[in-house]
């Protein structure tokens, strides 16, 4: 029995037992139960695109963190090829359960995501799903019209389709090629005539919706929306980062970012439908410190931290779809369950969650979502790996305080240092950052990566020296 068959069989077994479990209301604990929140016959919440009438599933499958054959994602095992079987299984499962929105990019998964997505989706009727991909012409080397057009054509080829449902100008507001946000936007899309060409493709039906994804300041957003307001270009949709932490604290976490509340307001009042990215901040909102999890469960025991985050992201009416970069089947099942159907947050719950966000913000985790845009670091650092370990210790409440000397400090110190060596090989650790700044412009969270690396380096060194 190959793995696909095995999964099919076990899925059938799960379905059978869940029927059984409902019938008997008394499970012996040996047969697998359905995952939390899953129920039979429930259907995915859908949202309507006001421009095209598309019925889009509230959960969208982000193809950015695809599983690799060696286990985990390309972040853990960068040299391992994508596990196409697993991707196919997840795509099949998603479609079966009402997920019809798939978002990718030419640069995701070391440039291999579109191909894997194309392989998986082409096994299904083209009309049964929407494809979203991006013009990711970040390197100034490919800012020319010719190179950028080639990128779009290449996407069509890899995705095995002759039209894209949702095409995004990737990462507006970020700057690049030595230019600021506005300069990079002009260099990538205006001065080379690329945006006009894309509008033409839309007229030809090769693009159905033309929009942008955004990481930047309110000023950068204003200049992009001005084009829309002045009627030069029409934005059919936008992809923004939205979650309960970024709602009020995006700007406080990093002064160069914009609070989601503002982004949402600006787009909503223009009637531009929105896609949401980072609903879980790269999984960080799903892994909360025990105290935070306890408060969430106490508030409503049905909802896990991930479910709370998805409910928050899916509740606003202007949201078309919430994109989640899922690696594991279990996560997909749980997320599908959360939106089948969505239980919208009440005003009171919304208020409560935003208060909780304040406490999470106060933990001061590094706002890395492991998107891997910064990678590969030319000097070999595993940047997301280092941040993930640091954040894990914060989330687990085991961060050793530098001036501590008690038993708990010693225990936490050891866990931090041993865990650090396990998570990141020593030649890829923070002390090897030279401050070349190549990564800085790539980070959509606008983290000052070299500064954080040097801070972590000093922290680790203090811990190493603090052996009793």
């Amino acid at each position, binding site marked *: 029995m190959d793995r696909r068959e095995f999964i099919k069989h076990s899925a059938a077994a799960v379905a059978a037992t869940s029927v059984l479990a409902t019938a008997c209301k008394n499970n012996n604990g040996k047969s697998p139960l359905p995952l939390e929140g899953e129920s039979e016959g429930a259907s995915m919440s859908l949202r309507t695109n006001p421009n095209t009438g598309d019925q889009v599933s509230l959960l969208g499958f982000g193809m950015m963190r695809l599983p690799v054959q060696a286990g985990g994602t390309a972040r853990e095992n*960068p040299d391992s090829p994508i596990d196409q079987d697993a991707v196919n299984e997840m795509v099949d499962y998603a479609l079966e359960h009402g997920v019809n929105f798939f978002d990718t990019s030419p640069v995701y998964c070391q440039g291999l995501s579109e191909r894997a997505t194309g392989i998986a989706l082409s096994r299904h009727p083209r009309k049964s799903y929407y494809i979203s991909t991006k013009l990711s012409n970040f390197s100034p*080397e490919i800012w020319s019209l010719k190179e950028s057009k080639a990128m779009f054509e290449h996407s069509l080829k890899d995705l095995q389709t002759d039209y894209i449902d949702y095409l995004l100008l990737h990462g507006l507001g970020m700057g690049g090629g030595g230019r600021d946000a506005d300069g990079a936007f002009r260099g990538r899309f205006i001065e080379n005539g690329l945006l006009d060409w894309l509008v033409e493709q839309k007229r030809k039906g090769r693009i159905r919706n033309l929009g942008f994804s955004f990481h930047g300041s309110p000023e950068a957003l204003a200049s992009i929306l001005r084009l829309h307001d002045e009627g030069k270009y029409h934005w059919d949709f936008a992809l923004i980062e939205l979650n309960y932490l970024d709602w009020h604290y995006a700007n406080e976490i990093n002064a160069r970012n914009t609070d989601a509340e503002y982004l949402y307001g600006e787009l909503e009042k223009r009637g531009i439908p929105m896609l949401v990215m980072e609903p879980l901040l790269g999984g960080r909102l799903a892994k909360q410190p025990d105290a935070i999890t306890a408060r969430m469960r106490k508030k409503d025991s049905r909802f896990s931290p991930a479910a709370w985050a998805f409910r928050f992201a899916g509740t606003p009416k202007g949201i078309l779809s919430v994109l989640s970069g899922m690696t594991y089947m279990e996560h997909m099942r749980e997320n599908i369950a959360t939106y089948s159907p969505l239980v919208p947050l009440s005003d009171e719950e919304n208020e409560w969650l935003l208060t909780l966000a304040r406490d999470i913000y106060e933990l001061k985790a590094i706002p890395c979502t492991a998107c891997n845009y910064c990678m590969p670091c030319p000097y070999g650092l595993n940047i997301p790996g280092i941040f993930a370990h640091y954040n894990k210790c914060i989330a687990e409440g085991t961060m050793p305080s530098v001036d501590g000397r008690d038993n708990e400090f010693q225990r936490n110190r050891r866990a931090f240092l041993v865990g650090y060596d396990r998570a990141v090989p020593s030649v890829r650790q923070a002390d090897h950052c030279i401050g070349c700044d190549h990564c800085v412009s790539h980070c959509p969270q606008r983290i000052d990566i070299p500064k954080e690396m040097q801070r972590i380096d000093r922290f680790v060194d203090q811990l190493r020296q603090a052996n009793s």
Partner: protein
Amino acid sequence: MLRKIRITLATVCFVLINLLFLGVSWGLSQHIAWVAKIQFLPALLALDYAMLLVLIVVTLLFGRIYCSVICPLGVMQDLFGWMGKKAKKNRYSHSPEKKWLRYGVLAVFILCLIIGFAPVTTLLAPYSAYGRVVNSLFRPLYDLLNNGLAAFESHYDSYIFSEVQLWMRSVTTFIVALLTLGVLGFLAWRNGRTYCNTICPVGTILSFFSRFSLLRVQMDKDKCKNCSLCEKNCKASAIDFKAGTVDASRCVACGDCLEVCHFDALHYKPSVFSHQHSAGSDLHQPDMSKRAFVTGAVLATGAAAMAQAKIKVDGGMAVIEDKQVPDRETPVTPPGSISAYNMNRHCTACQLCVSACPNNVLRPSTDPLRFMQPEMSFERGYCRPECTRCSQVCPTGAIKPITKEEKTAIHIGHAVWIEQNCIPVTNGDHCGACARHCLAWAIQMVEKEINGKTVEVPVVDTEKCIGCGKCENLCPARPFSAIYVEGNTMHHIN
């Protein structure tokens, strides 16, 4: 009774010294480091006269129990001998003492000690021969086990075992250790203590004293029925049952003969004091002339290969080329060793410091004149300021004990910058990793015009530099760092 006491004590010493050499845990090691300091040659090299006196008095009282209990190489041979006896009982026989060989080897050994020719002394020294066997052959296995356990426990959020790097510190030392184990194991399997009674310089020195020991194994010829079992079970080939003699110079007081004799003809008891006199030896620490270790040195250069992807896709990991050891004009030796010269004169190359080094800095030298003695290099780590472990375990005084505070004032070397490797020069990236990490604030970045471009490059204040190797270790240039440590011929203290 003698045998049981001997086996018990030997087991304790043997287990402890193995734990020490395996580097089981520093928490334990610092409390059992004494087991290396009671070794004869280390005590001699450390000029620990009190310890030497104790060992000599013990030998004068009890015979060569040192060889049966304290010496790990002796106990190792006993283990092989024990297995050999399992394969074939009563396998030994008497042989006459090979004085010319014993004294010949001892003479060569002392000569090499006096002129400071380390390769011979380190090869012959029994304790360090054993240290190399454990460090080169058994420690990797232990580390493998440790890493396996670490990988296992990492699934359970447990942090008892921390991963260690497994790497070949020196191929030649590994081969020497393999030969030591193979040859001595074979000899011990067949003939017992051949090495101890022909080659071992410590065995020969102690035999001077054991000839006059108070307690010794003696044969009562009246009770002896000439069954020959004692002779056939004497691993030292010291018993001649026909003549009724036991050669006290070679007997290691193991007690095996006492157990096999069915007729109560052998006793471990006080001897007659007829020959007793104090045997002064010529083994004072000789006055030695200084010799520099200048080896032809060519500055190692290497281009920093740091290719950058042209079209930027997300993810992936840059390949990291392994660092290579630069040619150092003067070897870098650990703080506490005073100078490479002092290290060379006192070190028996037992590898205990190499075992103790948690930062992968120490490794046995391949230089023929400093063969297998430790030297420092910084491809895998640097000499961390809070660590003084090598100085605490060294039994020979080659690395004298120092405190963390003393360490900060010891300048073991100084950093040297190599322009053509430096990243700001080779690819224009802003760097400064060496200056930022310097523990002694000895490096600063200054602007310099190179090839028509103004770049920031490091300058080293050699007066401040302590030679810890952090800059060399963290320099992004590969395979050869753009900044490396040259040893100071004598460590500067201030």
